[in-house]
């Protein structure tokens, strides 16, 4: 299991779903959401979910990028000033390995940004995108 890639190499995996950088834990987390989704996970849809300005959530956090930085490979910052490790799996290899933690943050952050829970489809798209990064 390779845990890190040079950014260039990582770019090659942009379109791949569940690329080689995802370990067995990440695979099972992604599978969990895919089984509950209507269609196959799409990194492209995940990308636009990440980048869109949603509204409907809390005014301080209109977008995922409000805190996570403009791209998945950037280090983000919470409103309280704490750094957030990059979302891209290639940059933060231990991400998305704990289902409970992933669910907790989807619950909180979807509510903060979208004002509602995210669907299983949205979650699997989002994860597919981040795991491809």
């Amino acid at each position, binding site marked *: 299991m390779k845990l890190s890639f040079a950014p260039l190499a990582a770019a090659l995996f942009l379109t791949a779903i569940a690329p080689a950088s995802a370990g067995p834990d990440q695979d099972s987390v992604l599978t969990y959401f895919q089984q509950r989704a209507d269609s196959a996970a799409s990194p492209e849809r995940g990308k636009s979910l990440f980048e869109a300005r949603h509204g409907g959530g809390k005014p301080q*956090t209109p977008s995922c990028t409000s805190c996570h930085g403009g791209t998945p490979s950037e280090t983000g910052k*919470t*409103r309280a*000033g*704490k750094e957030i490790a990059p979302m891209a799996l290639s940059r933060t290899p231990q991400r998305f390995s704990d289902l409970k933690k992933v669910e907790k943050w989807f619950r*909180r952050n979807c*509510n*903060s940004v979208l004002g509602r829970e995210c669907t299983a489809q949205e979650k699997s798209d989002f994860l597919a995108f981040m795991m491809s990064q």
Partner: protein
Amino acid sequence: MHGTNAADSGIATRPDRKASAKTVVWDIGVRGFHWSLVVVVATAAATGFLAPEWWLDIHVWAGYAVGILIVFRVVWAFYGSFHARLSSFLFSPNDTLRYLRALLRGKPQHFTGHNPAGALMVFALFVLLSALLVSGLMVLGGQENQGMLSGIVAYDAGHGARVFHELLSILLLFLIGAHILGVVAESLLCKENLAGAMLTGRKNRRSASTHPVPGTASPRRALLAIAVIAAAGGTAISALARMPASGLVEMPGNAVYLAECGDCHHAYHPSLLPASSWRRIMTGLPDHFGEDASLGRQTARELATYLAAYAAERWDTEAANNLRRVAARDPLRITAAPYWTARHKDIAKAVFAGKTIGSKGNCIACHADAATGRFDDQMIAVPEKQISQKATWRQQ
């Protein structure tokens, strides 16, 4: 140096061997003490009045040095050479008044050692410096939970002592001014460079000094006395120093708190808010300062209990004592508390927004010991020193 001789003293003196010659009046102990005290008091004053909080250690060490010098001087007042001894500058009230009256007429009597006004100054400075030392140790122990008195002085006592410490420090400046004026006045009136005499030790012996023959010092006895005092004092101080700081509570670490709350922000020490605020925070997590920070019911309950148990009411630290009073309009926000805003008001917004700090709530960016709730002055290091000079020395 001043060309004076026995004739112009005008007062009958006992026929000394060299009545007008310069003699060593101030021994090396007196001189060393005097100029060491100058350096140490100047350091204490400069760091106390001007330096930023994080220079506290230097101020404290200057204070300890004052204490050591005072002990030495007291011993030397019994075992030093003649003019160093207390007995040589104890004057009766009548003698003192007579001297002061003569001084006002511009014709003060010349004394080889301390004159009665100088003796008064010595006593005043001794009392004042001792009081500064004690009150300073009380501030350090009570307010900062540091130093040898941290185990026995409560915050309120330390905070009260601070008022005295500050008043006495201003009084000290006046006394130092009066001391220098007195030296200049007597130097002019008696045509003798007294400041120089404190450097060389040599003064004219041409006067009606009642003690014409200098005694000799007993350095060995002095050393013995100092050793006895050091042993006794050292034992007492180390016993005091071993006492745990009275303001601190033994608090078990809480990994759940650090993980759940520390994910998004600095895991604020429970002592930074009163229990009532913590309770409201823990029941309002779904809208936590504009974000959903909801937790599972079990975890939330566990953390609520922990926070309420170790809330500000439990602690006697500077932070807890002051942050117990929350902002009426924003009672859950530590950085809105009146004390917090007062202490940080001279720090520019840009400093907080800067890359290394990020937000006002990121305590640990500047307070290295924020996780302990101590917030020691010495642990402050603002990454961007854009902080105004005013803010740096305002110690509330």
